[in-house]
């Protein structure tokens, strides 16, 4: 449970309590329904006004549907491919050839895998890739180009990993390689930020023809906590930093960085996974339909123009 959800949880507990006491008797029904109204009101009040930092917390929610949920729900078949052919296979990112249920299209599906239990979370380094992961992803981008399959990337990472091995094996070089590959790949590239979109680790999967974000996901150049400690010299000011960074889906849509905000159920994806999975499945089909049949040169050129034009620079009055 997240802090700001406490009032809701308390109401839920009291209602359960009263139900127990009431048993068959009618005596407490009035009170119960009063509390139930209060509960609904509280939910709407809290969840519809989530602050940016609260959304970050929702995006990080351990029960939030992650890559595995989408992979299992949205594909008829997922044929996983492994390895960078160079050094290792990084469990933090997974990918392969998939057939989507919605529309039945074959695609290269990949994403950050935060795992489903302690063991797999640790194995996947909580979705933080090593160079092996970025290089596996690059291999998948190249296979997509070779086979003419659209790329669907599900972004959900706290960011690139800060570790010795990652630096020794050229993390920066590997991320740069992914960006160059995405800038050139002659097939549709569709990115969906389903949870955390942390820095370069996320960008290596969202230089795309379409970028969608779930309502409570975020995309940021840096984690709010880190930003607070660097800019405000006080990591406890993460709330402020999150707001200042304009990292929510809505902010990014307003700034024209992403194409679409995909709605989540009240309280976040984890409160009704099926609903989110359906939303994403339909969005994917719609977007892929829109991009299919596009001339590959035109696609790459449009991708170029899209990113080439992002920036907030102004000519200085002479």
């Amino acid at each position, binding site marked *: 449970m997240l802090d700001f959800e406490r009032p809701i949880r308390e109401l839920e507990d009291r209602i359960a309590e009263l139900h127990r006491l009431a048993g068959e008797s009618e005596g407490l029904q009035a009170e119960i329904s009063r509390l139930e109204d209060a509960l609904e009101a509280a939910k709407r009040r809290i969840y519809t006004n989530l602050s940016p930092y609260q959304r970050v917390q929702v995006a990080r929610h351990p029960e939030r549907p992650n890559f595995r949920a989408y992979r299992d729900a949205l594909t008829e078949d997922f044929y996983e491919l492994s390895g960078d052919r160079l050094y290792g296979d990084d469990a933090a990112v997974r990918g392969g050839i998939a057939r989507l249920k919605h529309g039945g299209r074959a695609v290269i599906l990949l994403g950050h895998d935060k795992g489903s239990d302690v063991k797999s979370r640790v194995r996947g380094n909580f979705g933080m890739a090593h160079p092996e992961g970025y290089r596996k992803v690059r291999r998948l981008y190249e296979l997509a180009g070779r086979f003419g399959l659209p790329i669907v990337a599900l972004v959900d990472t706290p960011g690139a990993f*800060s570790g010795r091995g990652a630096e020794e094996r050229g*993390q920066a070089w590997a991320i740069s390689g992914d960006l160059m590959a*995405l800038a050139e790949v002659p097939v549709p590239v569709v990115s969906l930020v389903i949870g955390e979109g942390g820095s370069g680790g996320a960008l290596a999967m969202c230089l795309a023809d379409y970028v969608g974000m779930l309502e409570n996901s975020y995309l940021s150049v840096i984690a709010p906590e880190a930003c607070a400690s660097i*800019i405000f010299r006080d990591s406890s000011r993460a709330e402020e930093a999150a707001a200042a960074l304009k990292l929510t889906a809505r902010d990014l849509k307003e700034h024209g960085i992403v194409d679409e905000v995909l709605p989540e159920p009240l309280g976040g994806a984890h409160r009704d996974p099926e609903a989110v999975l359906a939303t994403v499945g339909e969005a994917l089909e719609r977007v892929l339909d829109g991009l299919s049949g596009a001339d590959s040169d035109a696609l790459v050129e449009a991708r170029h123009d899209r990113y080439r034009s*992002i*920036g907030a620079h102004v000519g200085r009055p002479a």
Partner: protein
Amino acid sequence: MRSWLSKRRNYARTVPETESGVGQIDVSVFTRCKKCRQPVYERDMRARFNVCPNCEFHYPLPARERVRLLTDKGTFEERDADLVSGDPLRFEGYAERAAKARKKTGLGDAVVIGIGEIGGRRAALAVMDFDFIGGSMGSVVGEKVARAIEHAREENLPLVVVSASGGARMFEGVYSLMQMAKTSVALARYRKGSQPYVSVLTDPTFGGVTASFATAADVILAEPGARVGFAGARVIEQTTKEKLPEGFQTAEFQLEHGMVDRIVHRLALKADLERLLGLLS
């Protein structure tokens, strides 16, 4: 050392003649090299482009000085000098910070771009300046690097980019992140041609700059001792509680790990570039 690093623009250099509009030098002033702890004359340090005459330690070099170091005298035409950053997120304190940096460095932002000759060969040049908000990459750095790439492409010239950056410019949030994508799409087009792209990594180069254009080059040079990587050593030690080895992320470390082609002393850099461009032209 700080003393002169911060005051550096109050000094002119004696030899060779400068192109970066700076004043007279007080030849008597000297300072202590923070590396070898020896006293050095500002003038000597200046004449050697901020390389210690005693221990050869490479101190940061202002962008205009770097341009003077690399280009044939009188050949550099700066481009797009008028670009300055907007404040897309209205980020608390950014406007002031940027104004101060512009005043301090005399630059519009953390990069200078243009066309110049290197050993008689024209090349597009982009040089970053660590003194401007830590050489952080915001919209202007991304835009000007992209334009340098495009100038090179349009005029079919070699491209030389000298990086020095602490990483992303947080004040611009996701706009800063997206400059990695912007420079990458520009480079992807340039690489369809057959002109070389040479990246020069100087101390320090980290974060989004290293993870985009600075490492996507045909040939990568680095200055001796330059620290280059994605995450900084302090962050890594905080994250992993691991003690990092001596020389971690230095140019020498990166050469050993296969990440750079050559380590080139600053005072030999122009000659090295002339050799390379000569071989490829």
